[in-house]
């Protein structure tokens, strides 16, 4: 065994089990999907079309709306969802273990239900005539509206749903990260006379960066790919106010039968995701060790 192999083989051996399935069943299809973007891919014939599919992506006005909606949705969801999770984890941290367990369970519980069911429940909550939300508003004398039928409120309503229902697992993760912060770090800061705010930004945030990075990156990627709730609740409507990139991809690939074009649409989404993730890694990705 050469020096190079000896130096590296330990790492590769640890990667081997996960990467063998990853390469075959994940990376190959992903590369396939990338390649599809440059073809007119039909079941009976395949022809190379260069950048044609991309030209068609950019000449599709719905794709522009979908990109805008997707970015708005992602920013809204990630900011509020993570903010909520941070707030809750932070409030929970000094509480007794029993209370922590209770609240964490409560916040986690909605995660046990599938997204489709959550969407069905929220369809009822948003129902204009007999939904929970409008019933609640009416007790305050406010006349509700068709939340998902109004292009001005539909996307916001979906964001609100995602933020309220989401966050269970991120709270658990953030809580664990907070509990791992060495107590001495606090004590030093307190001795220095730091305020709560300073402790939070100067002590806590830097120390939970690895978890934050994971949450921000995976949250962004997952939210960028929102599909299920759109499919169940609005089908992209009203008036395309909630059409998202992946919903558009679904229509292109599986309703219009244009798999190459759908891949090109996905690559546009990919570039956006990649740029954001790169920024996030730069911002939060510094190696941290306690």
């Amino acid at each position, binding site marked *: 065994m050469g020096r190079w192999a000896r130096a590296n083989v330990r790492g590769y051996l640890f*990667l081997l089990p*996960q990467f063998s399935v990853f390469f075959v069943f994940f990376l190959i299809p992903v590369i396939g999907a990338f390649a599809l973007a440059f073809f007119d891919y039909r079941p009976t014939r395949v022809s190379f079309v260069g950048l044609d599919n991309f030209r068609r992506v950019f000449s599709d006005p719905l794709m522009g709306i979908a990109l805008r909606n997707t970015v708005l949705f992602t920013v809204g969801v990630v900011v509020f969802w993570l903010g909520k999770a941070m707030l809750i984890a932070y409030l929970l941290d000094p509480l007794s273990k029993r209370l922590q367990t209770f609240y964490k369970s409560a916040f986690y519980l909605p995660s046990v239900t599938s997204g489709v069911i959550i969407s069905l429940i929220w369809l009822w909550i948003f129902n204009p005539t007999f939904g929970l939300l409008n019933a609640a508003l009416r007790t305050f004398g406010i006349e509700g509206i068709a939340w998902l039928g109004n292009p001005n409120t539909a996307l916001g309503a979906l964001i609100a749903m995602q933020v309220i229902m989401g966050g269970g697992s991120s709270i658990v993760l953030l809580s664990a990260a907070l509990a791992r912060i060495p107590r001495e770090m606090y004590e030093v800061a307190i001795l220095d006379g730091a305020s709560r705010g300073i402790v939070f930004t100067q002590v806590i945030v830097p120390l939970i960066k690895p978890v934050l990075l994971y949450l921000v990156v995976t949250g962004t990627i997952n939210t960028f790919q929102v*599909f299920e709730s759109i499919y169940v609740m609005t089908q992209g409507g009203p008036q395309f106010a909630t059409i998202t990139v992946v919903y558009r991809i679904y229509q292109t690939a599986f309703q219009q039968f244009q798999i190459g074009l759908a891949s090109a649409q996905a690559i546009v989404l990919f570039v956006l995701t990649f740029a954001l993730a790169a920024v996030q890694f730069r911002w939060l990705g510094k190696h941290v060790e306690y």
Partner: protein
Amino acid sequence: MATRRPSLFRRAVIDPDHPVKPSSAGAVLFIGILSVLGLMTLVPLYWMVVTAFTPPTLAVRFPPELWPSSPTLRNFAAVLSRPMFVQWVINSTIMAVVVTVFTVLTASMAGYAFAKIPFAGSKWLFWVLIISVMLPFETILVPLFILITRMGLVDTYAGLILPLLASPFGVFLMKQFIQTLPSELMDSARVDGANEWQIFWHVVTPLVTSGMAFLGIITFVAQWNLFLWPLVATRSSGMRTLQVGLVLMREEEPMYFGLHMASATLAAIPIIIVFFAFQRYFLRGITVGAVKG
């Protein structure tokens, strides 16, 4: 100066070891905020369970009932009497358990390698992993299914499960967990003559059980609720998973909301069991004392 014993309230509510303890009024405020946010999260779920126990009726009560006035089990009976229901549960269980066990183990190993073992191409391989999840599943579905078809795995457990074993996010998560462990721990074990596997198994995994439990839970939940891939990858009714079966049931009764919610409640039970079985590991971060040893 004698320290006063904290009041019963403070002992019940506040972590006595926490360096930044809130005042009693602050704790009440904390609990208030948490309760409001918690209620918002739980109301939809509560309504799901209540509806599951409510006699089916289209005449939705307005305002909604907080407690079913005449609770019934007939919605559950309708779900459970479905032929093949047990087979669906078995298939979903096999799929979710196999994927979860494999993912937790192999993603931890890979995460450890990325976090603590220097090797050529480490950074590059990690980025391949992260980048690969940036294409939505809808676009890789067709290439993936072509692959499974070429391998002759359509409608087999292997074809159903193998593609689910890859977990880029799992590797990412475990890397993030493991990278915060002090490297001295591993170095001192290495000095003591432990090999890399022993270090991983005896030193690293005990310190990241909460991370592994977390990964296990989210993996299990994700697999249990999976719909599209099991639908596409399987063909015979004996291979059908629970979620696919339940979607079929809901479509046969599109307006029978009580049935939908009973099916969702039943489907959630295994997850709740797994959750409470593992919450000991899952909900509590490991204490720092253990790390610092």
